[in-house]
């Protein structure tokens, strides 16, 4: 595991020749050893086309490559940090929430419509995630940021979970999600419950939820 939690808001990572880390720019807190930080012109992996894709999709959070030999500490904005270990599966997460991840992971951009068709697009709009989201796959560790602590909610077939779209952080595994709305006449006259939209995640995997409704 590349990342070690120092406390709930800081992680440290070892870098050495053969293990590079991509991190959000400005998220380094301190380091020991000889480590260099290079702004990543592409904003991630996958060459120029991926870069253009990210720019178009507005998923081009500025990244930097951390390499060398030493221990680096990461943290950002006082947000809680959660480390997710990927063993060959895929994590779907908003690019803004990526604090750092191992270079061994494949980074790509996904169209929301791929998960749930038109409703996926609507979901992206309602949750503020936009039309695209970032996916990371392969073997390696990811450190994601959340406002408030992260709760892991496992889901299995027949046991879906409903999540407030603003509290949703990330999910992994074979998960289909759909936006369920409970809009009624009360919402129309301003007497709604405040929980008109919910994200229903079903399938097999893990859903990460933050203890706050503040989007990053």
């Amino acid at each position, binding site marked *: 595991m590349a990342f070690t939690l120092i*406390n*709930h808001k800081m992680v440290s990572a070892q870098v050495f020749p053969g293990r590079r880390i991509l991190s959000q*720019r400005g998220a380094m*807190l301190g380091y*020991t050893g000889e480590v260099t930080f290079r702004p990543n012109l592409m904003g991630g992996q996958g060459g120029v086309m991926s870069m253009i894709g990210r720019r178009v999709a507005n998923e081009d959070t500025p990244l930097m490559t951390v390499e060398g030999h030493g221990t680096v500490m990461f*943290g*950002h904005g*006082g*947000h809680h940090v959660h480390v997710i270990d990927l063993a060959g599966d895929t994590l779907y997460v908003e690019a803004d929430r990526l604090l750092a991840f191992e270079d061994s992971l494949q980074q790509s951009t996904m169209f929301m419509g791929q998960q749930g068709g038109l409703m996926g697009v609507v979901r992206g709009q309602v949750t503020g995630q936009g039309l695209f989201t970032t996916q990371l796959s392969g073997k390696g560790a990811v450190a994601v940021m959340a406002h408030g602590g992260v709760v892991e909610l496992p889901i299995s077939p027949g046991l879906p979970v409903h999540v407030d779209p603003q509290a949703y952080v990330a999910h992994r595994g074979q998960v289909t999600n759909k936006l369920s709305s409970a809009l009624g006449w009360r919402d129309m006259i301003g007497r709604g419950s405040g929980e008109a939209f919910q994200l229903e995640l079903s399938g097999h995997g893990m859903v990460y939820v933050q203890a706050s409704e503040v989007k990053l």
Partner: protein
Amino acid sequence: MTYPPILQTPGGEGPQIWDPHTLPVNDNVNPYCFSVNLNGAYYLQKGKMIAYYGEMRFSGIGRGVLDRVLEQNFNSPLHASDWVVAEGRGTLLLADRAYDLNSYDLEDGNLTVRSGNLLAFEPTLRLKQSIIPGFLTLIGTGKFVAASNGPVHFVEPPVRVDPQALVGWADCPAPCHHYDHSYLHGVLGGIRHLTGIGGASGEEHQFEFIGAGQVLMQSSETVLAEKSVGVVGEQSAVPHQQPTQAAPGLGNLRDLGRQFGL
């Protein structure tokens, strides 16, 4: 169909009721609130008191009865307007924007801390301005309370720390600036330097610590609002600094107001 419970570690034991006798003595009530057993005088930064039991008076530095005695310990006149003295007996509760609070014991030691992060200190300590702008040095024996965004992480030098993540340092020599300009080398670096295209990593500048001691880091890059620590006049061998903002309501008097504790 039965739904399994959401398994998580328990979050806490629920609300706890404190009274003057059960409140901790010079210790944390919870990670965000600190209880001081006051008997005499205590320095605290303005606005950090949230509650108190007992009889106490808060007076600006330069006005209190004990001022003649206390001013020997407060060697940062440019800072005086940010601080008050609590005098009396009782229990004083301190908090600061839900940041984590910690108390530190100094024994004939010295510790330098970011001025915005220092909440309170015992009058047995002496407060001075650090050479590094924005930091205050405490010297002597006593207890003080400091805030940090997230728990404080202690690191031993050699280490390079992002200026914003630095809470303070103890015992080791004052840090030096470390600039990393390697990314500006080469053709691409030249283009980057001239045009700004490609951006900077945001990590070109760190404070480098060497020697023996402890470096205190906070887990975030958002810092508490910087308190002005005044300006060292333009002298030889003193790096030029930006003039501080005029204190509100004092027009062009600038630091005069601070010096007189207005």
